[in-house]
């Protein structure tokens, strides 16, 4: 079984690579991890990895009609 950190790193890379191209939902990340790591990963592990990424501030939740995970950034709509 992979560790939470290993899954978190793989998820973080996936979000970084997709930035500017596609917004990813938490389920997109979990599905990709389970597909990549097979029996070495499960939904519980994915949940824990997402929690770690968000609690550490490496990723943030965003909402644009649906909820996504993204790199922290200043959004276009923000006022000073």
């Amino acid at each position, binding site marked *: 079984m992979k560790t939470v950190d290993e899954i978190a790193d793989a998820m973080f890379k996936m979000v970084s690579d997709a930035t500017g191209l596609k917004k990813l939902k*938490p389920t997109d990340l979990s599905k990709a991890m389970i597909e990549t790591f097979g029996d070495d990963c499960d*939904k519980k592990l994915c*949940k824990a990895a997402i*929690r770690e990424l968000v609690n550490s501030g490496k990723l943030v939740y965003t909402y644009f009609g649906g*909820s996504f995970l993204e790199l922290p950034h200043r959004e276009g*709509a923000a*006022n000073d």
Partner: protein
Amino acid sequence: MADALPKTPMLDELEKGPWPSFVKEIKMAAKRSPMSKDLLGLLEQSYNEKIGHWKHGGIVGVMGYGGGIIGRYTDLPEKYPGVSHFHTMRINQPAGWYYTSDILRKICDIWEKRGSGLTNMHGSTGDIILLGTRTEELEPIFKELGELDFDLGGSGSDVRTPSCCCGMSRCEWACYDTMAVTYDLTQTFQDELHRPAFPYKFKFKMSGCPNDCVASIARSDMSIIGTWRDEIQIDQDAVREYADKGMNIMRDVVGNCPSKCMDFDGKEISIENSYCVRCMHCINVMPKALRPGKDRGATILLGSKAPIVEGALLSSVIIPFIKMEPPYQEIKDMVERIWDLWCEEGKARERVGEFIQRVGMGNFLEECEIDIVPEMVAHPRENPYVFYEEFYEEDDGDDEEEG
């Protein structure tokens, strides 16, 4: 400062009449809050132009959470600096909406200091809605509310804050402890409430009896509605008392029974309980004479929603009767199976009710390992989704084709 309020002839129209007015409330708050004052000006401009001046803030939130804050900025920040940021906070209400006046004052104190002072008690999901604050105030407010034992509620594609009627705490009709179930589900599904991972929102609402005071059958993805499976309790002396006092039992009680399963012979009411659909009508009309049965539990229904992306739906029965006993594990396991399937196969912004319509109720029930039972069928031969395989002979279909 009252004379410094902007002129708002359009909004003033909404103060007329005997009903409460949000304009009146905003004006009261505007006497103390520059944010509320600019809100008045901005709204008046919007009403005149018929254009909304809000921008959606999709990234606004508190550390670690994906729900509970709805970000808003105005697109006229120079003209209305007070509402340059105007984020809404959803706060998880206590089950049954019980507060002490002391705690309400403390919440309002925080909000007057750090927000607009405007509240909406409560939003349609049930949360305390605190309207209008700045991004830099979110973390301090979250911390101060946490010190009062309040947490954020849900928003986005997550479990929305579960809510319930007051149930056994005040209501004699409650067939299970709605507040206990609400508290338990809220605690059990904290992760799903604060960390959105679904195709769209998922609401739980708990009503203690079929009167359904929180309208769960129309407004929640999962409705848990109290019911009973034995006989309605009848006090025939009290029935006669109602009759003696002039109640027209034949017309107002028996005549309005939707399943026509009651009778009154001038002295006693009789009920054919196997036909009773537990609508509560007779019990509501004669509360001293009739009561729900003693073998109580709940019916679980799935799939209702208000018309947002698609049209409105009412919930469908998936469990006709279940005893409501802690830790409610059977329900929680079923909920997890439903979420697994919906997360796997659901489209973005597809509520679970819409998902069921797309894949078909029969397939949905089978995938979620929920037994198909006759009580799911509203009227014989009307519901196309149930397919009783055990009563189906392989040749039946062929015969029809040949014939």
